């Protein structure tokens, strides 16, 4: 073995000024690094939201380890079962039969029957030609009291198609009853973080004002109550990763569907709110002016406190990082880095704006292998999002995922409050950002 020689790391393929960043893929694919930050939700966390459900996974040790420990860390082992695959199952047996027998054994071993079971075959099942249709046909006939959700844990397919969590979110809409439409309620589909209160989320404020109940899966007491949310007269989603689920449900139940994209700029927010107000027949112009004034005031207060402190943003913390970077830059904040591995088409205008108005803004990969050695900056940095906190090694950080329940001008108010708090109260990074599934129950 050769001796290691200390050399400077070349980050030119891992961090580029936005003026040189290609759209929508600023970085070449290659080996992938994974940071110690784990705040985002995975398929286990997402599925556990379904009341009175359990999950069954069928895979090898290595893949199983991540999901079974996720369940254990969220004190939900009693809602989890597994069939560990071995070499002989692949080489000498029929994986369809192994899968079926394994699931049946899980049901037999559980002392009580779940109302619903989310089943997760894996990449291997695709490659071995497993007949999952046959498996579900038999399960549905043998266990008619159980609602079977046909999920996948197949990351090998996700780079060019539907991700496992997108498919899971869609499956989780299938139990909803097809009931007559009730316009006094609406469904928020596929959002892991509950919406913040009215003062930090315009949608919460408007639905409350309009006396419309906003159904969220995490607030349903039991499986039956969840199924009855099929009555909602409108489907709403704020994350592009929920598009498949929300639009699929809307199509099945013949409901209107609104994508309230979590954008940060005035024209975008105004446009989305106007469309929603039109649907419900709300008059919101006065309310909106008042709301904007409060938001501007919050921004000025935050700016007075934060000044020119460098700011870094990541895609775990916020759904639309370029949109946020633009809004902050336009208001005079010093955004220096955005941690993302790709851009969304929805942010193309923000990308172009930033290229012109924030030429020094760096776009940094989170996956490129060089990022293992990303240096600690010399100056104090305010990080928005846990992954930015890790790369910046900054105790001054806003801990949130998926926008933290914020939306619209309320999001301005909420974020400014959180940024000010992060600056005033540095906190230890490791215990916060290494927790899996931020917002879920955690035994650690």
């Amino acid at each position, binding site marked *: 073995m050769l001796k290691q020689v200390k050399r400077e790391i070349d980050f030119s393929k891992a961090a580029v000024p936005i003026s040189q960043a290609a759209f929508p893929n600023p970085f070449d694919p*290659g080996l992938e690094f994974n940071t110690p930050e*784990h705040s985002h939700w995975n398929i286990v966390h997402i599925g556990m939201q379904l009341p009175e459900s359990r999950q069954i996974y069928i895979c090898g040790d*290595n893949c199983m*380890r991540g999901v079974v*420990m996720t369940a254990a860390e969220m004190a939900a082992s009693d809602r989890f079962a597994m*069939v560990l695959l071995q070499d002989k199952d692949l080489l000498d047996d029929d994986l369809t039969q192994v899968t079926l027998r394994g699931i049946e*054994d899980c049901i037999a071993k559980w002392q009580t029957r779940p109302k619903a079971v989310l089943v997760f075959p894996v990449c291997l099942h695709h490659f071995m030609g497993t007949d999952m249709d046959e498996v579900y046909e038999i399960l549905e006939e043998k266990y008619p009291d159980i609602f079977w959700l046909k999920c996948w844990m197949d990351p*090998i*397919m996700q780079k060019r198609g539907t991700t496992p969590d997108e498919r899971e979110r869609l499956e989780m809409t299938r139990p909803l009853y097809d009931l007559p439409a009730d316009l006094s309620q609406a469904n928020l589909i596929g959002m892991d973080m509950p919406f913040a209160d009215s003062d930090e989320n315009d949608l919460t404020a408007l639905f409350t004002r309009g006396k419309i109940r906003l159904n969220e899966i995490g607030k349903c007491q039991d499986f039956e109550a969840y199924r009855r949310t099929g009555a909602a007269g409108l489907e709403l989603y704020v994350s592009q990763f929920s598009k498949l689920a929300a639009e699929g449900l809307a199509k099945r139940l013949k409901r209107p569907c609104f994508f309230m994209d979590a954008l940060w700029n005035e024209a975008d927010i105004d446009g989305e709110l106007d469309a929603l107000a039109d649907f419900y027949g709300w008059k919101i112009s006065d309310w909106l002016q008042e709301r904007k004034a409060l938001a501007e005031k919050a921004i000025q207060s935050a700016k007075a406190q934060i000044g020119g402190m460098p700011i870094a943003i990541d895609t775990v913390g916020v759904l639309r990082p370029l949109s946020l970077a633009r809004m902050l830059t336009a208001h005079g904040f010093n955004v220096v880095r955005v941690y993302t591995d790709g851009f969304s088409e929805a942010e193309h205008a923000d990308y172009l704006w930033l290229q012109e108005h924030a030429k020094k803004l760096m776009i940094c990969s989170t996956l490129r292998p060089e990022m293992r050695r990303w240096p600690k900056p010399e100056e104090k940095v305010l990080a928005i999002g846990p992954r930015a906190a890790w790369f910046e090694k900054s105790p001054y950080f806003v801990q949130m995922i998926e926008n933290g329940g914020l939306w619209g001008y309320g999001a301005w108010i909420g974020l400014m409050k959180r940024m000010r708090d992060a600056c005033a109260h540095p906190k230890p990074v490791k215990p916060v950002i290494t927790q899996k599934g931020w917002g879920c129950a955690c035994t650690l």
Partner: protein
Amino acid sequence: MKTVYTKIPCYSGDVSGAASALYELKGMVVIHDPSGCNSTYNTHDEIRWYEQESLIFISGLNDMDAIIGNDEKFVTDVVEAARRLHPRFVALCNSPIPYITGTDFEALAAMIEDQLDIPVFYIQTNGLHDYTVGASGAFAAVAAQNALQKQKTKPHSVNILGLTPLDFDAPGSAAALTKKIEASGWQVISNWALDCDPDAIFQAGSAAVNLVVSSTGWQAAQILKQRFGIPAVAGCPVGSFAPLVTEALNQSEADGRTRMPYADLLEARADSKRAVAVVGETVGAASLGAALALDLGKAVQITVPVESPSALCSDTVLRIEGESAVEARINQADCVVADPLYKALLKEKTAFVPWHHFAFSGRIGHDQAVNLFEDSVYQRIEERTENGSIK
């Protein structure tokens, strides 16, 4: 089906074992996998990821590259990363999809090595086995490296083989073990590989004996025996069992034979009532069990739920596969010493002594991890076992 689990988790997988074993050796480990392996490893199977740098990556394999066999991308990406990051070596790990598509990793390693000025080798994993298999393969690959050569033997010296946080996650475990070995009059040449000096491994050929502290070091010990004639002793110096380990080291140095001092001891007490069950990795559990058998005068049965070389097992050190089989076996005992998550399998009347095992419960209870090489820590386990077994 014995591979159905509804109460307890599985152990860390083979890929995690390989990465853990090589973590501190300044190489680069590449797992040919779509996603997940790296996150699972560094979240649940690795305590060093946050504070201590190591180059462990996945290839980000997608379906089309797997189907059409686009190995060129893998080779190119590994070479590019190695040229940027300058590791001492590159280790390649397999995962389920490349395994079933029959990817030739030996050939890939050769292709990559042709383009780099460092060793490149393959650790035989496939994601379907537990950590002991991957860690064993990784340590074996290190033992087989040409950079290790036979050197003049230093009397009363050992290599410690099979030391990873997956089995020894309590802070200070490596230091306490070293101190204990040195207190018994032996010198530690190298430690494979926790809180270690990777350069010291180049001197491994000068050791008189290899001390195998977990089954993950057994395969490497066989290779070092074959290459350099170094005999091995399998056992951890725990409590009253420690002097027997030292005695075995002395004997093996003298006669060149490999020994497992726990085996005879546990066998000798097998006839008395089976009062205590110890659950865990083969060598660690058997060593703890041997110490308890000596101190408490009771029969101790060892249940090994992980894969293990049959040479390390015996009538009292049994490899038991599957949740139901483990449940049936350990409930025969009056007292069980095991990771706290095994409590889910126990009848109410069975006394229980917690012994955290990172490869099983991961971060859950890591703050309760025990350093078995500290006598005071062992004594607490012994006292609790004695009190518990009276119930």
